[in-house]
């Protein structure tokens, strides 16, 4: 059908002339179908714009614009060779950019491009259908990135529009857009119950059976190196890092809320890195109460699991490194993941420090930061022991003119020297870095620990929210008698930062916009409410898995049902649901005259028919009702009036509104009153 139309379009030499009257220009059916398909395609591309390269989105938009231009101006489609050339260049560009098509982002980019190219050559219903199918798939792929609360309504609306377009392009007989939208909307609403049922009860599998290589894309968050300025940069981001829910709502005090991330050993004078050496793990002994909690980590494309320092209990699929950092196997956390952990905030590491570790944690780059090294040596010489040395350094930070600021000045190559003797303004990473360098120079094994500190408690759902702005760096030193001891130099310079939260210790003027607003109570409430909704969404929809399914079934009284039972129940509800839909549809489509007069008359005939006086096909109202009177003389009065009214209403001259309604209601009343 559309092929024929497009042929007609192609052969018609008449160009559209500007309409004389400024009416809405009437689009042809084919143009309308194309317009809607293009709109749906763009709607499906939209969620991908943030993840694919900018030029891919641009290319798709250009293809759409070009196709629409061709349609409106009634030009021929771009030549086949040109189209193939564009497609080939686009594919080549994608391949060189991503080096593969077997990846989430590359796959999505490829789909976007293919959809755009297909759109450019679309002239038949078949082509448009392909574009729509690509759009469905793009909608689906959008969820592999974005699982936010608003993505579900977006998807539902997009699916509705897409399906309405599918209906529109597959109609050979006339149908308006409004009709297509209404009908599809109705069908979608009817389809939802069974979709929800499937969602709740379809058996979930643990783990992946086939993994696409996730693109190692840097997401906002900690990295495995630390240079001056890194953490303070992160602190400006209000993005969520992870949420924590403590069992029985027993939270550690704020100053103990250290969330451990990567531990950095190697220093080149400016940047801290993780070490290449493998260490022997020293046992860790909890000396205080244990906290049990569930941590829900936002995707950060690393295999780190942030845990309350120090973690003592973890699930089987995780591993604790010799640095006491918790990591997953090899799998990066590329989607929302939750883990149930146990930690103790007071602990002791036992045993002697392995030589390899001691050497690594004493190493300083040759000839760098000479002033700091000299300072450390003189300080160490002036005190009796290592513990006194640590105190001396901290009191130096506290008592001399050091500042804690989000906007530290840039530092020289010898960053620690420059910081300690020149700028004296820094964020946590400056203090941690300087402290570790001083400790190592004094002969004390020391290392930098990165992670998060603090968190905001949301009283609405009792979750602790840790965001990127809580990113922190601190130091650990080794004392032979006690093992690894946490030393947080930031606590010396800005104790409020540790006690009360990230904004407390900052010098005036260092508030970011988010921080400024955070002071506003109403805004805080809104933020906490929104976060509570998001948490609920994450826990119950995004993270709905085997365990939630099991507890739901238990609540329904089905203790540990097998796959067969579950399948049977699902199938049964399926059959029941569609039987109901079928019956409902039959009821909707039951023969009904549109004319209320006829409808009432039909009802009368049915009623009389049930009583045994069936109207013959050849009988008109006069003949039939006369026969009724003959057979049932007791009804003469009513039937005669009904007959007069019906014949008058149906065949008599047209009546005015009020007359019509009185007669009609009298007619209805009489028929309803009739008892046979």
């Amino acid at each position, binding site marked *: 059908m559309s092929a024929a139309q497009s042929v007609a379009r192609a052969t018609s030499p008449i160009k559209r002339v500007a309409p004389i009257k400024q009416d809405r220009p009437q689009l042809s059916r084919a143009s309308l179908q194309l317009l809607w398909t293009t709109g749906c395609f763009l709607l499906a591309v939209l969620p991908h714009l943030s993840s694919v390269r900018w030029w891919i989105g641009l290319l798709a938009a250009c293809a759409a614009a070009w196709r629409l231009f061709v349609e409106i101006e009634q030009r021929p489609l771009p030549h086949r060779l040109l189209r193939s050339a564009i497609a080939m260049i686009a594919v080549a560009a994608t391949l060189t950019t991503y080096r593969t098509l077997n990846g989430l982002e590359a796959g999505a980019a490829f789909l976007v491009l293919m959809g755009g190219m297909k759109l450019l050559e679309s002239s038949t219903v078949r082509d448009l259908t392909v574009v729509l199918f690509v759009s469905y798939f793009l909608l689906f792929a959008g969820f592999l990135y974005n699982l936010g609360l608003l993505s579900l309504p977006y998807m539902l609306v997009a699916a509705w529009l897409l399906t309405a377009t*599918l209906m529109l392009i597959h109609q050979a007989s006339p149908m308006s857009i409004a009709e297509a939208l209404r009908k599809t909307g109705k069908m*979608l609403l009817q389809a939802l119950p069974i979709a929800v049922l499937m969602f709740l009860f*379809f058996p979930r599998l643990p783990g992946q059976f086939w993994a696409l290589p996730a693109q190692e894309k840097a997401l906002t968050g900690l990295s495995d190196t630390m240079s001056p300025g890194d953490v303070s940069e992160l602190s400006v981001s209000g993005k969520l890092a992870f949420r924590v829910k403590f069992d029985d709502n027993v939270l550690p005090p704020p100053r103990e809320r250290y969330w451990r991330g990567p531990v950095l050993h190697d220093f080149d004078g400016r940047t801290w890195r993780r070490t290449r050496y493998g260490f022997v793990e020293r046992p860790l002994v909890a000396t205080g109460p244990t906290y049990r909690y569930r941590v829900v980590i936002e995707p950060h494309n690393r295999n780190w699991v942030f845990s309350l320092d120090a973690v003592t209990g973890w699930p089987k699929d995780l591993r604790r490194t010799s640095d006491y950092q918790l990591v997953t196997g090899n799998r990066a956390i590329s989607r929302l993941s939750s883990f149930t952990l146990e930690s103790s905030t007071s602990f002791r590491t036992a045993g002697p420090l392995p030589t390899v570790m001691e050497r690594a944690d004493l190493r300083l780059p040759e000839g760098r930061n000479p002033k700091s090294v000299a300072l450390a040596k003189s300080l160490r010489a002036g005190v009796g022991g290592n513990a006194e040395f640590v105190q001396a350094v901290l009191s130096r930070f506290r008592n001399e003119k050091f500042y804690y600021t989000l906007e530290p000045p840039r530092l020289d190559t010898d960053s620690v020297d420059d910081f300690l003797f020149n700028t004296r303004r820094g964020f946590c990473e400056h203090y941690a870095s300087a402290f570790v360098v001083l400790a190592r120079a004094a002969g004390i094994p020391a290392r930098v620990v990165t992670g998060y500190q603090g968190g905001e408690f949301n009283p609405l759902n009792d979750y602790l929210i840790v965001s990127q702005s809580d990113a922190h760096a601190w130091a650990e030193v080794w004392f032979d008698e006690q093992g690894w001891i946490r030393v947080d130099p930031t606590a010396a310079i800005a104790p409020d930062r540790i006690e009360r939260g990230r904004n407390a210790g900052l010098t005036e003027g260092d508030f970011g916009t988010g921080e400024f607003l955070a002071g506003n109570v109403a805004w805080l409430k809104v933020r906490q409410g929104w976060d509570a909704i998001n948490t609920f969404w994450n826990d119950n*929809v995004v993270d709905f898995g085997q365990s939630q399914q099991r507890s739901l079934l238990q609540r329904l009284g089905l203790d540990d049902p097998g796959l067969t039972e579950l399948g049977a129940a699902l199938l049964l509800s399926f059959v029941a649901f569609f039987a109901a839909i079928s019956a409902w549809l039959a009821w*909707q489509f039951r023969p009904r005259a549109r004319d209320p007069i006829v409808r009432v008359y039909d009802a009368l005939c049915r009623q009389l028919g049930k009583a045994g006086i069936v109207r013959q096909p050849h009988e008109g109202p006069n003949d039939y009702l006369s026969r009724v009177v003959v057979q049932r003389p007791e009804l003469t009065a009513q039937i005669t009036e009904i007959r007069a009214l019906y014949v008058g209403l149906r065949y008599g001259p047209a009546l005015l509104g009020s007359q019509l309604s009185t007669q009609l209601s009298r007619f209805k009343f009489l028929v309803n009153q009739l008892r046979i």
Partner: protein
Amino acid sequence: MFTSLLARLRRRTRAWARRRHGIDTDPLVLSGRRIYIVPTRLGVAFAAMLFAMFLGAMNYANNLALALTFTLGSLGLMAMHYCQRNLAGMKLASAVCEPVFAGQLAKFRIAVENLAPLPRFDIVMANDHSAAAAVRVDANARVVTEITLPAARRGRLALESFEITTRHPFGLFRAWAYLHMDLHCIVYPRPSERAMPPPPLETDTGGAQDAVKGDEDFAGLRAFNPGDPPSRIAWKAYARGQGLLVKVYAGTAVSSHQFDWDALEGLGVEARLSQLCRWIEDAFAAGRAFGLRIPGTDIPPNVGPAHRQRCLTALALFDEAGP
């Protein structure tokens, strides 16, 4: 190879459906029981896409992607029900089928009526030879569709079977019903190409004959019949409010052809019928009176389309069991 297999399968199912349902009444209300439904190629592609989505969603344990997959799957099943319901309860009735000459296309007209208060979309009537354009039948409305069948030979052409089909709403499913109504079209013999000279006019010079109308003397008025030439309508009588009347003439000099089977000695049966058909057509076109005499039938001379039809039908159905 595959298509021929498919065609054979289709013929088989049709024959089976015919045995199952027998000859249908006319008019007929389609019951749900006789509507068949299968996914189209597009439907299979849609299912394949959903399966791929399902695997992806399960693999990544991505609940929202799974929700989308289930929603679309459920929508697909909903479409199946809507597709079947788009046909069920439809009322079909045959309309008049105009006779044609052998070699032409017979046009069978079938009225589709929607008794429901909701519109039905994309209704296609089809047989092996043709498919009518898809129609939309609004609530409580009636649409007449036309399917054609080539009329190869004279006689009674039966429309053995036809289908009512729909792919509404998304083209994912095709629902159809086989119909076997007792529908016939009269096929006149093909008019002979080589026109033999018609038999000479026989002129009756006697007085006015009642049976044979001439065109000389005005004999009176009779009621209008569809097909009467407009020139014979008595417009003055119409203006007087007497209704549509036609002037009837009778002549003292009535001339008419007598087309006789026996005059065509030496020709075969079909050739004779063709020749007679040609003569009738020519005489009718010229407005001359003619009579027809074939074995078993003797139609006295007359004029007018009804007369023509009567004669041609006699030719069409001559020796019906014979040819």
